[in-house]
């Protein structure tokens, strides 16, 4: 029980220390605002922050969904065709190792001038795509060959082999990839918005830039807090999904007795 509460207790303790130090040392709010001031900023800007959070959340979820579909789709294709894998995998890796910040200005110019949301979506998807692809490829490659043979012996169709064997067998790896991709799609959305500047995107990153320009440091922190909350929520949702799928049978989800 104490282990579960430990992070909360630590967090509250640090917040209290922060509040006390800022007051005692009389730190000006444009250097470091107190937690209390951040809370007030959050309350004051509530409606606007809420809109921005929904914007960022929407881009993140769309990018995550798109990356999941594309990652799984290509992984399935790679499992079926060695030629396809040999031809495309190097490019997937190039896309992965090229820093997104360096691609972002190009995408923003090509796509973003007409449609900034589409540009953000593309960038966030690129960031989130690779972990799903590589984990799913690993998962599909680890399917027990004897079970494959058994399915063939039973005359299973290609779809039956995929649905009843490959997908469940690869689900631990796919879910691990999705868990990484969930966080990355948020990072991708935020980075893309930073590169786009205030050219039309109205998410939480734009709030941070705007508040920074006006030296409204408490508002910057308020947007930052909401970004963390979003990240944590996504992580928790995917952890719950993982538990739902795996808790009955997979080693990783079974408590040792």
């Amino acid at each position, binding site marked *: 029980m104490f282990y579960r509460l430990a992070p909360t207790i630590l967090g509250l303790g640090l917040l209290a220390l922060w509040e006390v130090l800022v007051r005692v040392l009389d730190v000006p709010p444009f250097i470091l605002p107190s937690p209390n001031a951040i809370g007030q900023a959050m309350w004051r800007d509530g409606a606007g922050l809420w809109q921005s959070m929904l914007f960022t959340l929407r881009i993140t979820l769309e990018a995550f969904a798109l990356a999941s579909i594309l990652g799984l789709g290509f992984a399935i294709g790679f499992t079926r065709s060695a030629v396809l894998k040999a031809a495309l995998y190097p490019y997937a890796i190039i896309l992965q190792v090229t820093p997104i910040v360096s691609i972002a200005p190009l995408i923003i110019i090509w796509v973003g001038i007409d449609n900034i949301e589409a540009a953000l979506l593309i960038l966030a998807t690129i960031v989130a795509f690779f972990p799903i692809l590589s984990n799913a490829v690993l998962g599909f490659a680890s399917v*027990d060959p*004897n*079970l494959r*043979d*058994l*399915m*063939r*012996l*039973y*005359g*299973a169709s290609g779809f*039956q082999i995929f649905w*009843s*064997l490959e997908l*469940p*067998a690869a*689900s631990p790896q796919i879910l691990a990839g999705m868990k990484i991709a969930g966080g990355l799609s948020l990072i991708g959305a935020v980075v893309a918005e930073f590169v786009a500047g205030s050219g039309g995107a109205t998410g939480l990153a734009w709030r941070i830039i705007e508040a920074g320009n006006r030296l409204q440091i408490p508002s910057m922190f308020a947007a930052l807090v909401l970004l963390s909350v979003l990240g944590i929520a996504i992580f928790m949702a995917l952890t719950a999904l993982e538990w739902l799928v795996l808790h*009955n*049978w*997979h*080693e990783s989800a*079974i408590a040792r007795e």
Partner: protein
Amino acid sequence: MSFLTIAGITKTFADGTQALGPLDLNIDQGSFTAILGPSGCGKSTLLRIIAGLNPASQGGIGFGDGLKPEMGFVFQEPTLMPWRRVHENVALGLEMRGIDDRAQVQDAIMRVGLEKFANAFPRQLSGGMRMRVSIARALASRPALLLMDEPFAALDEITRGDLNDDLLTVWQSAGFTSLFVTHSVFESVFLAQRIVVLSERPGRIVDDIRVDAPYPRGEDWRLSVEYAAIARQVSAALRAGHHMQVAGGQG
């Protein structure tokens, strides 16, 4: 006409290794045949060719009525789907054909004595019980031919003995034809009506030994003089095939 005819089968792997044959064998309907040989003699390959999982390089497989019969396959490992409960694993073969016959699944589970564990996940079972699930899965689609590839090799002696007893009971009541690959002399003598001994790679038939003891076979068969005599004969054949280059391959 025999149930299964193996005619002039050979297998050469892509790297040029000759794994098997040439090999000719006739299997009678409803019989229990053990295929015994040293590791790497191609006995698993033979089973996979019969199942249609791998093609033979030469020769062919024929079935009595010309049609490929319903087959069950039991691997050395239980090879279960860990995300499926016992009854869902057992139902796999039927499910792939779109058949939802709970009674048949239930019957297969009962035959291997796992009715209390129908809803368990494989991880909750012991190694021997998982093997039983694997056998039940093979039985559920009512095979005419049951192919077993060293199914009990990884189990401890006591569990192995229990499973041997139960396998014979199931075979006697269900009446399928059994092909049982093993490298254990004693297991083959205990189980089979006929023991086909293969040589070192490429596997050819060294000896074809009949075991006339009646079923049910139990502990008294294991302790009998005839059992020991046949075991000695099988061991001798196995040793003879160890370095020998068999010319014809006919048993």
